[in-house]
């Protein structure tokens, strides 16, 4: 019996060793792209003011290097935009539609602005990119429009409703839906009453492209601000209203650049690339207008999740070097960060 005991012990050790090998192999799975919740992470740069971002359907506030959750209702939040008085416009996704809410700084619903149940006027189901006009009177957004003459043809168009009465009949600002090209998105209301937005189109060779366009009033003929070859979208207007940041594609749609151009109210100046890749997205200006915050992958790994990046002194004349703000998060790249003082 005494001699058997060491043998059993050694055999048990062997079994443990074999199981250990099995377990160790499991740990060798690629740990690439390990991400965490923002509340378990910390920013690498202390940005002034407050930044609001979206990750995995939840809204977070970044302040003094730390992320805290915005305690909004448990919807699947997919976009945030700034609203007057420090409130937040937030888009909640459902399986077949979106609703747009006005949240206060604590995340409480101030009111529901757009909902599928109130889409009886234009039969739209999706509303994205909500923006309040500088005078605070009008809510612009991109909504789907189904062409009644061609059943499959559904494209985004820009609509607007009174911010105080969003259930009013919408004013249609852009004539999309003619060519199945995706339509018009990302409206930027201007102080002069016009808007800039991104118009998607398709050329005779089947190439899809986006252009920034300007319209002074609903249904006015849009003026192109960028060319088809530039393929630019996701415009962000600086607080001074004199510069526009935008995202332009390159390399057969596999990557993008972030560019800044001066804006004089009618035309764009020559753009300057402030982030050359791999996939900068969703820029937003700092409250002082001296830098741009945006989302991008790691510079050396275009397949990595999207992190916050920052370009200080991001003027067209003096672009700085991009600086990484977060390292291990997974932000929703189609939601521009909201940055308030």
């Amino acid at each position: 019996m005494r001699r058997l005991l060491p043998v059993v012990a050694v055999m048990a050790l062997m079994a443990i060793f074999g199981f250990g090998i099995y377990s160790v192999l499991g740990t060798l799975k690629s740990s690439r792209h390990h991400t965490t919740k923002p509340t378990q992470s910390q920013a690498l740069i202390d940005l002034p003011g407050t930044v609001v971002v979206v990750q995995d359907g939840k809204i977070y506030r970044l302040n003094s290097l730390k992320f805290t959750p915005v305690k909004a209702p448990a919807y699947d939040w997919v976009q945030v935009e700034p609203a007057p008085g420090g409130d937040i416009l937030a888009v909640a996704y459902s399986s077949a539609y979106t609703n747009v809410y006005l949240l206060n700084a604590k995340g409480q619903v101030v009111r529901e602005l757009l909902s599928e149940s109130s889409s009886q006027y234009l039969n739209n189901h999706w509303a994205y990119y909500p923006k309040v006009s500088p005078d605070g009177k009008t809510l612009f957004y991109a909504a789907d429009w189904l062409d009644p003459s061609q059943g499959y043809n559904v494209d985004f168009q820009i609509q607007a409703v009174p911010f105080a009465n969003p259930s009013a009949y919408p004013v249609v600002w852009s004539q999309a839906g003619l060519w199945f090209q995706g339509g018009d998105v990302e409206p930027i209301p201007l102080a002069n009453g016009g808007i800039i937005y991104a118009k998607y189109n398709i050329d005779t060779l089947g190439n899809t492209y986006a252009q920034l366009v300007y319209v002074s009033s609903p249904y006015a003929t849009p003026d192109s601000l960028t060319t088809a070859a530039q393929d630019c979208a996701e415009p962000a207007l600086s607080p001074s209203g004199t510069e526009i940041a935008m995202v332009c594609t390159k390399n057969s749609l596999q990557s993008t650049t972030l560019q800044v151009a001066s804006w004089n109210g009618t035309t764009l100046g020559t753009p300057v690339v402030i982030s050359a890749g791999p996939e900068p997205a969703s820029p937003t200006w700092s409250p002082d207008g001296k830098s741009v915050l945006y989302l991008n992958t790691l510079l050396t790994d275009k397949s990595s999740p999207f992190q916050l990046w920052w370009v200080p002194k991001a003027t067209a004349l003096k672009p700085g070097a991009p600086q990484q703000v977060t390292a291990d998060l997974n932000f929703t790249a189609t939601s521009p960060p909201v940055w308030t003082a």
Partner: protein
Amino acid sequence: MLVAALLVFGFGLSGVSGVVAYFLPAISAALNITGHQTQGNSPNGNHPTPTPSTTPNQPFNVLLLGSDNDTKFAPDQVLAQTMIVVRVNPQAHSVVMFSIPRDLWVPIGNGGPAKIDTAYADGGAAEAISTVENNFGIPINYWVWIGLGGLVHLVNDLHDVNIVAQMPILDDEYPSDLTGGNPYAYARIAILPGPQRLGGVAALEYARSRHGDILSDIARSQKQQQLLLDIKASAKDVGLADVPTIAGSLGDSLKTDMSITQVTSLLTLAKAFSDGSVQQIVMVGSQYFSNGTIDGQSVLLPNWTGINALVAQYFPS
């Protein structure tokens, strides 16, 4: 001495057992996925089999087949809605991806004319290969077939993929055959434009939706090629220890006639290619085909002058 030898042997055996236990699912799945014989199920028979590339570093062609293998179809009779010929030139480190529209009206195998996507349903990989070889004059060395669920699992196992969506994708009649109980049901989907990270289901929606684009299947081919490159980018860091998970989840959704060794070589080769070395070819316009209606079906009637010129340019013999 004997005790020491027994101990070494025992621990060695235990370690090997641990390794075998870990990789057993991968080995089983890999055997299930690879080395498929190129058989057809058509009564016509007489299908050629692909000619494996035997000379190292010589260019070779792989026919990628993608199917809606939901419950609308019998498992062995699914259409190949996606047909992409990939030419790999190991020496030049270049790749050509050439999409064949599914509605192209061509002679199928040894039978009469039909949409090219029916070739795989009629006669499996063999008939799909013979149809491509006979009509386009492109020799096929290997084939790979993937089903809808396979693509979803692959992207999920890679922990999602980054894409730059080329336009907003709105589709009110996207097939909800994977998620719902009814394979004929529709769902409404919306994918925003621009850079973003997509999981398996959303990546499939991006590559599969066609209703919201004037170019329909042609645009879908462009997006499928784009997604392939994005998957390649995400797969570059996949290690040996990841293989059991990925191989296990692919199950019956992936098949190829390549051997495990050939797949491994191809994956190693793929890591060496940059996006800039990949040429994406999608036929658009009347120089390649015209729209027509045959037997009540919307079809694409080939313009072989234009197509042959394109093939000669990118697939030199």
